[in-house]
C-alpha cells in the first residue's frame, strides 16, 4: 500500500485514493473538430512510461480532490505530488527511465 502525499491532507495510505491515470491529458476544447485519429489518441493513447510518470490521483476517501503525482514506475517511488493546474517541475518532465 503506497503512501501518497495529498497536497491538501498530507501523507495518506493508498486505500484512501483512486488512481486517475496519466496526468496532463487535457480534453480537447472542440472534440467535434478532431479527426478520428486525433480523438482516439485523446481517448486511448497513453505514454505507459517506464520511469518517471505523471499521474492523477483522487483523494476519494479523504478531501475528494484530484491532484498529480510524479512516480517512478520502475521503483514506485513518488518523487512529488502537486495540485491540479500546476505543471510538473522541469527537472521532472523528462521521462527517462
Amino acid at each position, binding site marked *: 500500500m503506497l503512501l501518497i502525499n495529498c497536497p491538501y491532507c498530507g501523507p495518506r495510505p493508498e486505500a484512501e485514493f483512486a488512481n486517475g491515470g496519466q496526468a496532463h491529458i487535457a480534453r480537447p476544447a472542440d472534440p467535434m473538430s478532431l479527426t478520428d485519429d486525433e480523438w482516439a489518441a485523446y481517448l486511448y493513447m497513453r505514454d505507459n512510461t517506464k520511469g518517471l510518470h505523471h499521474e492523477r490521483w483522487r483523494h476519494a476517501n479523504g478531501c475528494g480532490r484530484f491532484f498529480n503525482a510524479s512516480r517512478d514506475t520502475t*521503483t514506485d517511488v513518488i518523487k512529488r505530488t502537486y495540485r491540479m493546474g500546476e505543471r510538473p517541475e522541469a527537472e521532472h518532465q523528462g521521462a527517462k527511465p
Partner: protein
Amino acid sequence: MTDTYRVRRGDGAESRNAVHFTFEGKSYQGLAGDTLASALIANGVHLVGRSFKYHRPRGFVSAGSEEPNALVGVGATQSRYTPNLLATQVEIYEGLVAESQNRWPSLETDAGFLNEYFSAFLPAGFYYKTFMWPRMAWKKLYEPVIRRMAGLGRAPAEPDADRYTQVFAHCDVLIVGAGPAGLAAALEASNSDATVILCDEQAEMGGSLLSDRSASIDGMQAADWARAALDELRKRPNVKLMSRTTAFGWYPHNFVGLNERVTDHLANPAANQPRERLWQVRAKEVVLAAGAIERPLVFTDNDRPGIMLADAARTYVNRYGVVPGKQVVVFTACDSAYRAALDLKAAGAKIQVIVDLRKSASGHWVDKARAEGIKVRSDSIVRGTSGRLRVKSAQISNAQGGDAETVACDLILMSAGFTPSVHLFSQSRGKLSYSEELRAYVPGESVERERSVGACKGLFALDSVIESGAKGGRDAAAKAGFPPRGERSYTVSARSVGADAFIGSVMADHQAEKRAWVDFQNDVTAKDVRLATREGFRSIEHVKRYTTTGMATDQGKLSNMNALGVVSKQIDVAVPKVGLTTFRPPYTPTTFGSFAGQSRGDLFDPVRKTSIHPWAEAQGAQFEDVGVWKRAWYFPQVGEDMHAAVARECKATRESVGIFDASTLGKIEIVGKDAAEFMNRMYTNAWTKLEPGRLRYGVMLREDGFIMDDGVVGRMATDRFHVTTTTGGAARVLSMMEDYLQTEWPDLEVWLTSTTEQWSVIALQGPNARRVLEPLVEGIDLSADAMPHMSVRQGRICGVPTRLFRVSFTGELGFEVNVPAGYGRAVWEAIFAAGKSYGITPYGTETMHVLRAEKGYIIVGQETDGTVTPDDAGLGWAVGKAKRDFVGKRSLSRPALVREDRKQLVGLLTTDPKAVLEEGAQIVLDPTHPIPVPMIGHVTSAYWSATLNRSIALALVRGGRSRMGEELSIPMPDGVIKAKVVDSILFDPKGERLNA
C-alpha cells in the same frame, strides 16, 4: 515414554512443567518451553517425515523456521487442523496432537518409498519427457497418478473454527529480529522519543543469545543479558515488543507485513483471542536484524534422520536442554561447528570425530577441540552415510578421495557456514552484493529507508554484531527525527568463530558422488542440478524451475546457495554472474485466514440495506444482491413461487396500486449557478430549458460513446438539480462528474453532493396511486393538471418534508416519494396503511423489471452492456442534437458507431405466446446453419407478462429496427423458438395511463 535425552538447560531454568502430547498417535512428555522438535528429540525421536518425491525418511535439520523436513499436521479436530507446520516452530501444549505427513500406511513403512527404487528414472523434469502417449492417457491415467503423489500434508476439510484480525500500525522505528543486533538496536533507538516496534518470529526473544553458553555481555551470560535487555525495553512506554511475530513481507514505501501467532501455542485460548493477527506496519525507518541461517553441506546421503545443522544441535542442547545424539560425527567447513561440538560434549555426547573440509584446521576453536581430546581430520569429507530410519554411520575420507573409514554415529552435524537472511532487504528492492569470503550475498545499496545490522549484514563476531545493531538503532531513530539521548557502550566477551564458508557439493569428483541432497524437501540432488545445466537450463531461474530447487516450503533458505555453488562450478561461471533467484514474500508460509482478517461472512463486504428493508423482511420478501445492496426481489405469499408472486404483483400494480422501495437509486445534488451548463456537458440531453419543478430522463455516456448510466433528473431550482443514477452506478457517476468538474472545468460554479442515503424513495405506481397519496400529502396539489407526469413538488407527507416526483417506471400513473431516510419506513407504513383499501401490493425488483419491460424501458446493465450507444438502445431522442459537445458526443460519430447493422433494441414476441425466452439466448436467421451459426443478436430481457397474458422479450438485434415484423429464430438446446420482431413498447404505446 520418558525423555531420556534431556540434559540441563544452559540457563538453569529446570523447573519447567511437564507437558503431554501425542505424535503419530503415541503419547509423549515434554517440558513447557519445548518445541515439538525439542520434545521429540528429548524422547529420542528423529524420524518425523517423508520427503516429497522419493519419500525418504527424514528428521530434523534445523531448530528454526528454515526447517525443510520436519513438517507435521497439528490439530485434534478437523476445524482446527493445520498441515505443514514445522515441528521446530510448533510449541507444545498439554493435549497437542500432531502427525507426520506424506506417508502411507505409516511413517516407518511407507509405500511411497517405492519411488526410491525408480529414482534413477525420475530425474529433474522427467515428467516433461514422458506421459505423452497415448494422447488421452495424460488426463485419464498419468495425471491422476501424479496428482495422487502430490502435496505434503492434507488440507483441512472443515471450515476453520478460528478467527483472525488485522491491525494497521505506525512506528518511527521497526526492528525485525531480537537477537543481539536487534536488541542493541532497540535499546538505542528507544533511548529517544521514537516509537519502536521490535518483533521476532520466535516465542522467546534473544535470537542466538539463547543458545550461547560461552559468550558474555556486560558481564552477564549471553542469555541473561538478553533477558535483562528485554526487561529494560518492556519498561519503556515507546517500545512495543512482539514475539511470535514474523515480518513476512516488505511492500513499497516502508510498509511491512507482520504476522503474529496469538493462540497456536495455547491449550485453551481465551475467547477474545484471534488465532493470528496481521499487522500492517508503516515504519519511518526499519532496522533489519534477522540474523543468518546455517548452511548444510552437500554430500552423499546427507538427508538421513540424525543429520543436522551444527548450530541447530547447539540450540537444542543449550536452549532446550536436549541432546540430539550421543555419538556424534561433525562435518564442517568452518569453526562454528567446533563450538557446537564442544557444547554437545559438555552435555555428555561423545564426539567421534570432527571432519573438516578445510585444507588445514587451526585457531582457537580447533585447538580447544583438540585440547578436549576430540579427534580432528582436516582436508576430509563425509562421503556417505548409512542408516535407514536414523543415521548409523558416516564414511569419511580425504577430500580428494581415497579409502573411506566408517565411523558409527547417531548424529552427524554439518556446517557450511552461514547465509545472511537478506530476504526482507531484497524484497525492499535493495541491491545485494556477493561476498566471496562468506560465500553468500550481503546487503548492498538500500532503496527504502532501512538498514541491516548484525548477522544479516554478514557480521558474525558478537562484538561487531552488537556494535552494528546499536549504531543501526541510533541511526534509525535519528533519521526518523528523534536523535537518541546518548550512546551506551557494551562490553562483549566472546570468541569469534570466523566466517569460513563453503557452497556446492563437497565431492571433488562428481562422477563418484551418489545422491547428495541440495533441496531436502523437494528431493533435488546435486545431480539434478547438474543435469539441468547440461540440458541448457543455465540461468539460475531456469535451474530453479526445472529442478524445483528452492521452491519448497522453506523457499531455499538452506538450499539456494548450495544450488548456486553447484551450478557455478558446473558451468564454470562465477557465482555473482550466475545470479540469484528473487526473494518474494512471505518470509515463511503465512496463514490465508490472517490475510483475510475480519472480511468474512457478513463482513466480507458491507451489506447495504434501505431503511424499509426490515419491513420487507418481516413481510417475507426474498432479496437479491445488487452490488453491495440487498434489494427486495419479490414478496411471495404462502404457496407462491416467484412466477406466481410476480404475476400477482404485476397485476395488482396495473389494476390498482403497487408500492416499491426504490431507495437504492443513486442520488446527487448538483448546485450552483452553472448547474445547468454542467448538466449539459455531462448528459446527452439538453437541460437549459427544463423548468424548475420538472423532471427529465437523462442519459450519460462514457467518453467512448457507450451508455454508462441513466436516471431521472429533477430541477429543483434554476441552480439546483436532483439527479438520480442506477443503484450500481452511483459512485461511478459521482466520481466521473467530480473528475470533469475538478480537472476539465474548474471554472464552473457548481458543486456536487451525494444524497443517495439522505432519501428513502417510495415508488407508488398504479391507477390508484394518486388516491392513496392524496390524503397524506400537505401543500401539494396532486391533480393531473397541477402536477403532470414528469414533475416534482416539495411539501410534506405524513408531516415530514418530501420531494415528490411524479414519474413512472411502470407505465402507470406513478409517484416517487422522497423522504429523509430516517422517516422512510414510517412513511412507507403510513402509505401502505392508506393503500389497504385499494389492495396496495408491495412489489420487488422482479416485478419492476417486468412492468418496465412491457413499456420498453431499458435497464442499464441489462439492455446495455458497455457496448451500446443511445441510438442502439432506442434513445436517440434523448441526445441533444443541437448541443455542441457533451461527454461521449465525439465518439458517437466514429465509423463503427454509425454502422447501419449495429445491434438495436427491439421487442420480440414469440410465436408461441406461452414460450418465455431465456435471457441471454442468441438470435439467428438460419437455425439450420452448421456450427458456427452466425448470430445476429441476443435476448436482453424476457418475462411472462401477466398483463398481456403472454411472454414478452426485449432484444438487441442487428439492424433490428429495420426488421419489424420479421420472424427470427432462437435456437435452444431442446429446439428452436420463433419470435417476431416488434416495437419495444409492448403495452400502452401512447402512454395514456401514465398521463392519467
